[in-house]
C-alpha cells in the first residue's frame, strides 16, 4: 500500500479547488496586457533640471524684489547653468547689506563667489535642495498626470514612477491614443501676459526684444487651406497671473459662434490680481499663453472684477474639454518627454488573442496526442497532469494578478512542451528499469526516484534564465518570463507529484502485475 495516499489525494483536491476558486470566472480574473486588450504604454522622462531652473529663477526674482525693497540697487540677476545664480549689485557700497539680505531670503543657497570690489555674488542651490526639487518634480508630475487621467476617464489606468525620473503610464483600452498622449504630456503652464505694443513685433524680431519682453507666437490655422501661420507677439516676460491662480475650468459654448471655449474661474487671490491687472491696463491687450504659445490676445475693455476669464482660440470640443481638464489638474512642475511608447489598437489585440488561443489549443492537442500514442495509458496520465498544469498556471496568474501578454501566450505554449518533458524523463527511466528486469512496482519506484534529480536540474536552469529575463524585461517580455516560470514550477507538482499519485492509485494492490502501459 503506497504511503500517505489519503493526504496526497486531499492535497491534489485542495489545490484543484483553490485553483478553480481563484480562476472563476476567467474573463474577470485574468489580467490582459496592453498588447492583448489594446491600449497605451508610455514611458515619460521628467525634465527635472527644468524644475530646478524654474525654482532658481523664482528665487532670483524674490531676491531682486527684496533687495530693491530695501533700497539696494541691482543691475542684473541671472541664472547660470542649472542651479547657480549671479547677482550683480549696482554699487559695491551696499555689499554688506546685500549679503545680509540674501542670506535671509535665500537660505537654501550656498555662496560660491563673492567679489566685493565688483559687487558680484555667485550663489548655488544646495545639492540636497536640488535633489529635493527633482524628487518633488517627479512626484508632483505623477500626481498631476494621475489627476488628468482620472478626469479623462480611463478604466484601470496604471501610473507609476520608474527609476529616478521616469513615469510609466499604462492606459488600457484607450480609443484615441493621440488625444490621450497630448493630454498627459502637455505641461499646461497657463500664463497671462501683457502685450507690449510700444514696439512692433516685426521690428522686435529684427532688433531683438527690448529688455523684460519676449516674442511668443500664435499658431493660426486657415480653415479652408488648413495651412498654418505663426503670428508673433511681443509680450512682457513677467506673468502677473498663472495657472496656479486657477480655481476651476470648464467648457462652455459661445452663443453666437457656437464654438466651444474654456471658461476659467480664478481663486480669491487670482481674482484680486486679475481685477487689479485689468483695471490698470484698460485698452491694452492681454495674451493668454499656454506652454509658450499665445492662444489669444483679447483687448482689455474694462476692469473685470468677476475673477473669470475666457480662453477662446478655435478649439474643437475635444480640445476644449482636454484643456479644461489640464487646467483643473494643474500644470506639470517640469516638462515631460515621451521616451518610449507602445500603442496597440483594439483590433490587433483581438487578433492576437484569437491567434494565441489557436496556438495554445493546437500545441496542446499535438502534445496530448503524442504522449497518448507514445506512452499509452501512462501518456494519458501525463496528459491529465498537463491539463492540471495549465489550470495551476492560469490560477496562479489570477491569484497574483499577473498580466497575460502576447509573449506570455508564447510562454504558455512553451510550458506545454516543457511540462511533459518531466514526464518523458520519468517514463523513459521506468522503461529502462523494466528492460533491466525490474518488477512493475520496482520500476515505477526507481523511475521516479532516479529521474527526480535530473528533473530538478532541468528546472533550475530554465528558472535561472526565466528569473533573469523577469528582472530585465519590460511589459510584454516580463509576461513571457512570468508564464514560463509559473508553468515550469507548476510542472514539479503536476508532472512529478500528481503523476506519481495516479500511478500509485492505478497500480495499487496489483503487486503481481507484470505489464505496464507505458
Amino acid at each position, binding site marked *: 500500500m503506497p504511503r500517505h495516499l489519503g493526504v496526497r489525494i486531499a492535497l491534489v483536491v485542495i489545490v484543484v479547488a483553490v485553483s478553480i476558486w481563484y480562476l472563476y470566472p476567467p474573463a474577470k480574473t485574468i489580467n490582459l496586457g496592453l*498588447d492583448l486588450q489594446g491600449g497605451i504604454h508610455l*514611458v515619460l*522622462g521628467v525634465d527635472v533640471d527644468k524644475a530646478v531652473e524654474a525654482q532658481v529663477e523664482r528665487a532670483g526674482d524674490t531676491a531682486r524684489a527684496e533687495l530693491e525693497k530695501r533700497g539696494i540697487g541691482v543691475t542684473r540677476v541671472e541664472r547660470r547653468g542649472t542651479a547657480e545664480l549671479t547677482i550683480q549689485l549696482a554699487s559695491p557700497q551696499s555689499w554688506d547689506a546685500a549679503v545680509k539680505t540674501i542670506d535671509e531670503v535665500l537660505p537654501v543657497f550656498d555662496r560660491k563667489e563673492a567679489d566685493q570690489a565688483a559687487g558680484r555674488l555667485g550663489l548655488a542651490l544646495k545639492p540636497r535642495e536640488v535633489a529635493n526639487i527633482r524628487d518633488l518634480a517627479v512626484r508632483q508630475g505623477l500626481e498631476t498626470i494621475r489627476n488628468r487621467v482620472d478626469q479623462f476617464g480611463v478604466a484601470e489606468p496604471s501610473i507609476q514612477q520608474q527609476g529616478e525620473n521616469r513615469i510609466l503610464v499604462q492606459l488600457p483600452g484607450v480609443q484615441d491614443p*493621440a488625444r490621450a*498622449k497630448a493630454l498627459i504630456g502637455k505641461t499646461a503652464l497657463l500664463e497671462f501676459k501683457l502685450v507690449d505694443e510700444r514696439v512692433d513685433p516685426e521690428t522686435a524680431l529684427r532688433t531683438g526684444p527690448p529688455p523684460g519682453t519676449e516674442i511668443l507666437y500664435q499658431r493660426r490655422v486657415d480653415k479652408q487651406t488648413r495651412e498654418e501661420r505663426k503670428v508673433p507677439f511681443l509680450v512682457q516676460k513677467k506673468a502677473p497671473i498663472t495657472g496656479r491662480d486657477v480655481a476651476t475650468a470648464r467648457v462652455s459654448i459661445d452663443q453666437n459662434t457656437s464654438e466651444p471655449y474654456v471658461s476659467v474661474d480664478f481663486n480669491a487671490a487670482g481674482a484680486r490680481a486679475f481685477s487689479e491687472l485689468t483695471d490698470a491696463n484698460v485698452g491694452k491687450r492681454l495674451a493668454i499663453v499656454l506652454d509658450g504659445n499665445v492662444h489669444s490676445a483679447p483687448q482689455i475693455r474694462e476692469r473685470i472684477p468677476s475673477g473669470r476669464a475666457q480662453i477662446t482660440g478655435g478649439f474643437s470640443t475635444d480640445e476644449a474639454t482636454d484643456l479644461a481638464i489640464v487646467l483643473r489638474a494643474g500644470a506639470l512642475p517640469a516638462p515631460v518627454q*515621451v*521616451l*518610449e*511608447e*507602445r*500603442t*496597440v*489598437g483594439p*483590433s*490587433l489585440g483581438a*487578433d*492576437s488573442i484569437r*491567434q*494565441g488561443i489557436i*496556438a495554445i489549443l*493546437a*500545441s496542446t492537442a*499535438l*502534445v496530448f496526442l*503524442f*504522449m497518448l500514442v507514445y506512452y499509452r495509458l501512462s501518456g494519458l496520465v501525463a496528459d491529465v497532469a498537463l491539463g492540471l498544469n495549465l489550470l495551476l498556471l492560469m490560477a496562479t496568474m489570477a491569484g497574483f494578478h499577473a498580466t497575460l501578454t*502576447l*509573449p506570455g*501566450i*508564447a510562454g504558455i*505554449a*512553451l510550458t*506545454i*512542451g*516543457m511540462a*511533459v*518533458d518531466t514526464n*518523458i*524523463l520519468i517514463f*523513459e527511466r521506468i*522503461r529502462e528499469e523494466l528492460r533491466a528486469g525490474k518488477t512493475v512496482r520496482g520500476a515505477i519506484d526507481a523511475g521516479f526516484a532516479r529521474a527526480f534529480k*535530473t528533473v530538478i*536540474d*532541468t528546472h533550475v*536552469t*530554465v528558472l*535561472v*534564465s*526565466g528569473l*533573469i*529575463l523577469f*528582472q*530585465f*524585461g519590460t511589459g*510584454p*517580455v516580463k509576461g*513571457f*518570463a512570468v508564464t*514560463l516560470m509559473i508553468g515550469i514550477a507548476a510542472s514539479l507538482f503536476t508532472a512529478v507529484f500528481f503523476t506519481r499519485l495516479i500511478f500509485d492509485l492505478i497500480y495499487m494492490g496489483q503487486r503481481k502485475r507484470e505489464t505496464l502501459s*507505458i
Partner: protein
Amino acid sequence: MIELFRDPGFNFIGRRRWAYLISVLFILAGIGSMVAKGGLRYGIDFSGGTLIQVRFEKPVAVDRIRHALETVQMGESVIQEFGDDREYLLRLPLAQLSSEEVTRRTQEALAKDPELGKHEIRRVEFVGPQVGRDLQIQAIYAVLWSMAGILVYIAIRFDLLGGLASIAAIIHDVLVCLSAMSLTNREMSLAILAALLTIIGYSVNDTIVAYDRVRENRAKGARRKGEPFETQINNAINQTLSRTVLTALTVFFTTAVLYLFGGKVLEDMAFVLCIGVVTGTYSTIYIAGSLIVDWAGWRDRWVGKRKKVVAKA
C-alpha cells in the same frame, strides 16, 4: 510499445570533427551574412525609432505607400509587408520628429492618397535613443548573467570542465540562432532576446541528462573496466538519446505550432525558439559531449607532460 531508438549504438563522438565542421560552416555563413548586411539588424527596441503597423481595407502596393509618405518627407521609411498585402509595417529611424509628429504625418499622408483607401493604425511603437541604449546594455547583461548562473550551477553539480563545455554549447546555440536570424533577415528585438534566454536555459537540460548518465555509469563501475572517457560519453549519449530527442520533440511541436499559427507578431520569436530547440539537441551531443572529450584529452596530456617534467627534475 513504440520506441524511437532501441539500444542505439551511434558513434557520435567518433564523428565529432564532422559536426565541428558543420557548426563552424553554418556560423561562418551567419557571420558572413551579418557582415554583408552591416551587422545584425536591430529592431526599434534596441536601435530606437518609430514603428507603425497599418492595415488597409484593400490590398496596396509598397510603392504606393512610399509615394504617399514622400509627400510628407518620410520617404526614407522602411516599408515592410506584414502577413499579407493589406498590412504593412512602417519603420522610421530616430529623428528630430517626435513620435506624435511621425504618427500624425503618416496618418495625414495615408488619408490624403485616395488610391490607398481607408486604413487603420493598429500599432505604434516608439523607442527613444536613451531607452534603446539602456535596453542594449541590459540585454547583454541578461545574456551574460544567465550564462554565468548556469555555469556556476553545472560547475557545482558536476565539474568545471562540464560547466565550461555546457557554456560552449550555449554560446554555440546562441550563435546558430543569431546566424539563422541574419540569414532569414530577421531583426533583433526584445521578444527575440526572451527567446534566446529561454534557449540558454533550456538547451543545457539535455546536457545535464547526459552528464548525469556518465556519472551514474561510473558509479556502476564503467571506469574500473578501463573504458576510455570518449566511450563513456558516447555510451551516455546513446543511452539518453531517446529522452533527449523526445523532450526536444514535444517542445519543437509547440514552437512550430506557435510559428505557424501564433500570428505575425510572435513569428520571429517562435522561429528562434524552433531553431534553438533543434540546435540545443544537436549541441548536447556534438558540442557539450564532444568538447568535454577533447578538453579532457588535452588536460590529461598536459598533466601527463607536467608529471614527466616533474619526474625528470
